[in-house]
């Protein structure tokens, strides 16, 4: 019986059953929800299809957010990736474009999959679709890895938080990066322990990130922080696959993230008061969208 209260528990159970964390989670969830594994796989495949559509939606040149503050980032990055290698290579610029596209799709009232939240919805799709389209990963393996991502997310949600209002951006984009890193390690053939290591490293590298949305909208800086989450997920997955250990076990990293989240001042937890939201330009942008009476 899985409680999803410990990452170590996931690793041990998968090792004992000689399967991946994704397969383990699928089996257990099917049992708990009283449904066939096939049905769950089909539902997850549908969610993946929504992610793919969100990328297409957000890579259109004319994509504009509801507030008018942002738009076209996914398209710009895609064009950039077509012009040359970029600084971090075409693979990465294409991945970045996907993250920008999904986050932009969200900001323009398009359809997305909260993964784990709407604010961090670009990270998992960008990572998974990049492995599928640009690395030749198997679609079934990608869909299976979403159960892995979900399992890590459930542990983080139960032991720390996945809400920016509770734990800051680390709880949203940090959790998403950890989930995506674990999923990618599994797709690339890593062990359950390496999945846990990748998740731990990603959480460590996003720790302390505050939630300071300008005008309280899921746009500035959220859209770009999805890209940061993708970069963290890739680097963490690579480190884990290279055999680099996090030194601090994943569960303790999650606990630390919770403590850091608790210690963050309220002004930096989705209240649109501190951080970027409180800068002169942040306030001016707020006024531009909502008018003058909104301090």
């Amino acid at each position, binding site marked *: 019986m899985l409680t*999803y209260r410990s990452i170590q528990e996931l690793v041990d159970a998968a090792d004992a059953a000689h399967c991946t964390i994704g397969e383990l*989670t699928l089996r257990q*969830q099917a049992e*708990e*929800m009283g449904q066939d594994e096939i049905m*769950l796989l089909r*539902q*997850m495949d*549908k*969610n993946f299809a*929504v992610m793919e559509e969100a990328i297409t939606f957000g890579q259109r040149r004319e994509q504009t*957010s*509801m*507030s008018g*503050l942002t738009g076209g980032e996914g398209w710009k990055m895609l064009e950039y990736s077509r012009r040359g290698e970029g600084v971090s290579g075409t693979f990465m610029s294409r991945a970045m474009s996907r993250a920008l596209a999904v986050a932009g*799709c*969200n*900001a*323009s*009232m*398009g*359809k*997305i*999959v*909260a*993964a*784990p*939240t*709407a*604010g961090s*919805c670009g990270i*998992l799709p960008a990572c998974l679709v990049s492995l599928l389209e640009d690395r030749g990963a198997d679609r079934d393996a990608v869909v299976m890895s*979403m*159960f892995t*991502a*979900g*399992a890590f*997310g*459930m542990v983080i*949600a*139960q032991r720390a938080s*996945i*809400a920016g*209002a509770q734990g800051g951006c680390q709880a949203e984009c940090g959790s998403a990066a950890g*989930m995506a890193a674990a999923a990618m390690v599994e797709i690339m053939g890593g062990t359950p322990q390496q999945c846990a290591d990748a998740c731990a490293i990603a959480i460590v590298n996003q720790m302390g990130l505050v939630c300071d949305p300008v*005008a*309280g*909208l*899921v*746009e500035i800086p959220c859209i770009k922080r999805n890209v940061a989450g993708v970069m963290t997920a890739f680097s963490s997955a690579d480190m884990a696959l290279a055999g680099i250990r996090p030194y601090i076990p994943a569960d303790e990293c999650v606990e630390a993230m919770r403590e850091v989240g608790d210690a963050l001042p309220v002004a930096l937890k989705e209240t649109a008061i501190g951080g970027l939201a409180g800068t002169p330009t942040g306030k001016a942008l707020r006024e531009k*969208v*909502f008018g003058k009476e*909104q301090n």
Partner: protein
Amino acid sequence: MNVFDIIGPVMIGPSSSHTAGAVRLGRVVNKIMDGKQPEKVTITLSGSFARTYKGHGTDRAILAGILGYHSWDAEIRDALEIARERKLNYEFVCRDIPNAHPNTAAIHFLLPDGTEGEVVGASVGGGNIRVDEVNGLRVDFNGDCSTILVMHLDRPGVIADVTQLMRAKYPDANIANFRLSRKERGGESIMTIEIDGVATEGMAADLREVDNVINALLIKRV
């Protein structure tokens, strides 16, 4: 919690509380109107809803819900236009409701037959909602279960009649939550009955026949 709470829900952005939850509040009104299209709705936005609705599309989301759309329907984005096409007269008012949750909306509706009603509810985070008031009476339900609202006169024995009928005709219906509220002694009252599993449509119709019951409505999971 299950895996689809983390890899999901599928929703129209940008915000689970200001958009997806707002659709669900609108859907409660749609159910209370029994799926009928109102002639006019007046939507009062309070707190954070009032201050940020433009950027989050909260107005479109609530209207879409009133029109019967789900939180994952692409039509939400065009809900204002759809409402105009369907000749639904709508008005948004920004006014803080005292002591209300920061994301609260009060939705007043007028049906073509002259029936009026009002629902007050809040989007409490992650797409979850809480309905606080129906037609001026306190209620408390979240739209996750099947909920039966029984509007009735405050008379001795009405609750017993209602629950006895449920027991006799629907022995499998287990009451998960029950709440009673009244305006004044002997006056208009409302029972909020949340039921495990799926409640059948016939239940509300049967309950309407109970003495002193004015109306009964089934609100399926929104």
